[in-house]
C-alpha cells in the first residue's frame, strides 16, 4: 500500500462512515482497508472519537430555570398561542 492511497482514503472517511459515498467507491475503500493495518487503526480512532462526541451530548447542564425566567418564557408562549388562535378564528 502506498501512503498516498491511505491519505486519499483518509480524505473521504467521514463520507464513508456516514454512508454518503456510492457503492463502488465504498467497495474500493473496503478492500483497501481490509489489507492495510494503518488504515484500520486510523478508522478505529476516528470512529471512537466521533462516538465520544455523540455520547457527550449532554455533558453540561444548565442551571435550574428560575421562576422569573420561566414566567418570561411562558408569557411569550401564551401571547403567541393566543395570536395564533385569533388569526385562525
Amino acid at each position: 500500500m502506498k501512503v498516498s492511497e491511505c491519505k486519499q482514503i483518509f480524505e473521504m472517511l467521514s463520507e464513508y462512515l456516514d454512508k454518503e459515498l456510492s457503492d463502488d467507491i465504498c467497495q474500493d475503500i473496503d478492500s483497501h482497508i481490509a489489507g492495510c493495518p494503518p488504515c484500520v487503526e486510523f478508522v478505529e480512532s476516528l470512529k471512537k472519537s466521533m462516538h465520544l462526541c455523540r455520547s457527550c451530548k449532554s455533558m453540561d447542564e444548565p442551571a435550574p430555570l428560575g421562576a422569573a425566567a420561566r414566567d418570561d418564557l411562558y408569557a411569550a408562549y401564551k401571547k403567541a398561542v393566543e395570536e395564533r388562535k385569533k388569526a385562525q378564528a
Partner: protein
Amino acid sequence: MAIGVQTDVGLARDLLAGEPGAFDRFVETFRPKIFQYTYLMCGHREDAEEVAQETLLKVFEKLDQLREPQHMKAWVFRIARNACYMKRRKSAYAPTQELSLDELMPAFRQEGNERKLEIADWSSLPDDQAINSQFKKLLRRSIEELPEIYRSVVLLRDMEELSTLETAEVLDITGDTVKTRLHRARLAIRQSLDKQMRANGGDS
C-alpha cells in the same frame, strides 16, 4: 399523546395548538440541548445561560413562523445559532480560521518492513460507557479549540444528530460545505484527543 417518547413533530404540533403541558415538555427537552450548544459555542457558562434564555424567548415570540413542525429542531437551532452570533458580535472579534487537511493527517513511520501510524493506542479506550470526567475534559478542550465555523457543524451533526441538509439550513451554507467542515472538525478532534492521550502516556 401516545405512550412512550413523544417525537419532535408531535411536540411541535402540541406546542402550536397550545396543548396543556406542551410548554413544559418543550422547555424540558430543548433547554438542555440549546444550553449545551450555546455553552460550547460561547465558551462561558454565564454567556451561554443568557444566550439560551434569549433563544427560548425568541422561539416563543416567533412560534407563528414555525411552518414545518417536522423541522422544529433545525428551526430552533437556527435561532440559537443567530443568538450566539449576536453575542459574539458584541464581544471581541475572532477572525475565521481555516483548518488545513494536510495538517490533520497522521504521520507514518517505517519500522523494518512495516509502515506504522504515529498515533495513540485507541484500542485501550472504552467504547462508550465508563468515559470518565477526565476524558470529558479532554473532549471539551478539543471541541473548544476548533475554529467556530467547524465547531458549529460538528455540534449540530455529531452531538445533535441533525442531517447534513438540516445543518446546512441552520448555518446558511451548502451541504457540501457542511460535509467538508464536518470532516475537518472530526479529524481535528481526533488529532487533539490523540495528542492529549499521548501526552498522558496513553492513559487518559
